[in-house]
């Protein structure tokens, strides 16, 4: 008789995060992200100076104990600006990805759930948007709305929608074609239940990976816009903007370009690594490996 054996399968949740953290990528990513969050969250406490106060030190002071990352040409402390910049950067990433994720998920889920002509309409529109490329959409948006950090966030967020919609759609479509979905239909679940209790939770893992990788993408894109002058406006300590402002001093004060660039690269790296680690941890193949034990 098939006696029910109290399963020795590992608890999913705990082992999942364990799997993420046990990878070198996951651990490094986690460390950087914690650092970033600390810098952003505790900037008010930790930052040695006011990020916008001029003449906090002498202009263009090289990195020293008092100013670990030096000062810019207005005498502002670069470290403090980088720390406050982390706040901006994380907000940019979160808002842009939030826009992409919420709208992309809505479109993708609806298209996969509704089927028929609405599905065709939604997904063909997404295809058209997708072939516009993210850059073009973002530029068009900034062109219409005018340069500002908020507009850059919106632009980057909107530009990401097609990709998120496609991924959500593909994932939702594959889930809804699985028997368990039909099982839920047969059990009498209505559209709300099917969409929010069944489809959404099953699509989310994929979307979380996409969004994590998307964070790095959004941060990079927004920094590029700010770099071009289409995003952050002075005196916002946005990294892309700082980098752009620092290039005039390259020969005399290379640290003005070095640190913001490094900050962007590390942040982007962290979210890339985190995305990879999440994906690896969710990969059915690595799950199988786990099960084989």
């Amino acid at each position, binding site marked *: *008789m*098939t006696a*029910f054996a*109290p*399963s020795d*399968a590992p608890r*999913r949740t705990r082992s999942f995060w364990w799997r993420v953290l046990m990878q070198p990528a996951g651990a490094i990513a986690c460390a950087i992200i914690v650092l970033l969050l600390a810098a952003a969250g505790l900037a008010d406490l930790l930052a040695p100076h006011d990020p916008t106060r001029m003449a906090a030190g002498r202009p263009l002071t090289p990195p020293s104990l008092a100013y670990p990352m030096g000062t810019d040409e207005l005498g502002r402390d670069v470290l403090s600006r980088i720390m406050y910049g982390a706040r901006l950067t994380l907000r940019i990433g979160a808002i842009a990805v939030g826009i992409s994720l919420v709208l992309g998920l809505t479109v993708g889920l609806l298209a996969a759930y509704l089927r028929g002509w609405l599905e065709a309409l939604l997904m063909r529109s997404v295809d058209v948007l997708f072939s516009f490329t993210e850059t073009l959409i973002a530029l068009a948006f900034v062109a219409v709305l005018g340069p500002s950090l908020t507009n850059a966030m919106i632009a980057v967020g909107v530009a990401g929608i097609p990709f998120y919609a496609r991924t959500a759609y593909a994932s939702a479509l594959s889930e809804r074609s*699985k*028997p*368990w*979905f*039909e*099982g*839920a*239909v*047969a*059990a*009498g*679940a*209505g559209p709300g*239940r099917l969409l929010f209790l*069944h489809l959404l*939770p*099953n699509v989310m893992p994929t979307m979380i990976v996409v969004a994590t990788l998307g964070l790095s993408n959004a941060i990079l894109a927004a920094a590029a816009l700010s770099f071009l002058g289409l995003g952050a406006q002075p005196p916002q300590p946005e990294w892309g903007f700082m980098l752009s402002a620092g290039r005039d001093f390259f020969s005399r004060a290379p640290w003005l370009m070095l640190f913001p660039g490094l900050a962007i690269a590390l942040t982007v790296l962290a979210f890339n690594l985190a995305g990879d680690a999440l994906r690896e941890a969710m990969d059915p193949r690595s799950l199988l490996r786990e099960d*084989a*034990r």
Partner: protein
Amino acid sequence: MTVLDIRNLAVAFGATPVVHGVDLSIARGEALALVGESGSGKSITAMALMGLLPARASMTADAMELEGQDLRGLSDAALRRLRGPQMGMIFQEPMTSLTPVLTIGRQMTEALRVHFGLSGEAARARAIDMLDRVEISRPADRLRQYPHEFSGGMRQRVMIAMTMALEPRLLIADEPTTALDVTVQAQILDLMRTLVRETGTSLLLITHDMGVVAQMADRVTVMRHGRLVETEAAAPLFAAPRQDYTRILLNSVPRLDAPLRPAPQPTPPVLGFRDISRSFAGRGLLRRSEPVRALDGVTLDIARGETLALVGESGSGKSTLGRIGTRLDLEHDGRVEIDGIDITGLRGRALRKLRSRVQVVFQDPLASLDPRFTVGRTLGEPLRIHQGLAGECLRTRAADLLAQVGLPSSALGRLPHEFSGGQRQRIAIARALAVDPAVIVADEPTSALDVSVQSKVLDLMEDLQRERGLAYLFVTHDLAVVRRIAHRVAVMRRGRIVEMGPVSAVLDDARHPYTQALLAAAPVADPTRARRPPAPMPHTPDKPLSLVSDGHWVAA
């Protein structure tokens, strides 16, 4: 003379042993079947032999000799030279086992050139000859084609031709026919038998199917949980298995000569199909391709307490009919009736309400449960929706349902992946039962299960039917299962019913040539039964059904 000799083989993935203490030996021209259920380690054994274990696996053996040559400790290159001319292998999935972007000709000739240094022309001639021997027409033209231009059966023929072209001493066939329809399976097995006999090649046949074993093997090795259970010549093993496990395995196999279930009392139909047709349109903006006709005017009734089996090969439309019955597919012509009431037009809320009458159980037990829903939530969902239950009441009822399918209430808080296949299928059945349905459509509910588990699930389904007067629409490809569970059977081909009637009438007195072909092709777990050459598939146009005896309809 011994072609293959393995003693005390052990394979481990990391620290986890998966095969241990396995001995195998095969004599020249002998066919050895390696039998076991999933997880028994039979495929791993074969891969170890081929030297194709994944990198993370480690292997030890007291002896591992092929044609007297020690395989242990051979370099990659040396092993590679043995693969092909010394030992060839055929895999389960013909659809994916050939490289899609290369022509058949290229794939057939490359190994000939590598191992025998044949010239392009000579290799081509050999390939044509081999294709001819596996009965592929116009072989010269076929060499220029790509795998996707062949059907599954044809691809398996190509695989066999490709492997046998190298005249290996040992042919390893890993579930070579599992993915194929029974009639095709019969042809492929027949072909393999012929080729093996003609070339004197030894055969290591890996399978879970005792019917295939009975038809193919001289000797049988049974494995379980990575260990050897017993090795015995085929005839005595089937006649008098010595080990308990072997006995259970053999007894679990449904048999075509098993006793029939008594017919239920005649009652009015609960689920009726009236002239159902269904087409699948070709995709694309420029609609050029002909719509595929999956169902063509099917009319059918299922009575209370009755099991009606739908039998047919892939593409016969049997699953589509099942989906229409459960209202998962609404895009069809014709009418569907429940308790004599036409429900074809119901949508939305009315349809959801009605869903409690017809429930469904799917083939793949893992895929049929929402991976993020605990068993409690899965079972609770229909209860909440249809009976408005909540809280403790709902829990009690869910536990009750679990008890009915033989699972403890502690399972409620667990997720599907924590259960075995059989347990999952029980949960799926419990969910179907939750709303107290009149009919359950079961689409190949046991095909993905091991035979021993299949048998228990079928028992459960029978018990439930008896207790609750359930009607089953049982979709399957396996005639033996039909005999085991069904009262009536409908045989389907290309969207039509070709024969329908009581199980006894249809299986023991098949009138339609297609039914007869199916019966002939079905492997029987009895090595003493004469091996009938597969009958050529009749290609007669289907005629309307006509009554030949009491309740027995035939399209002829």
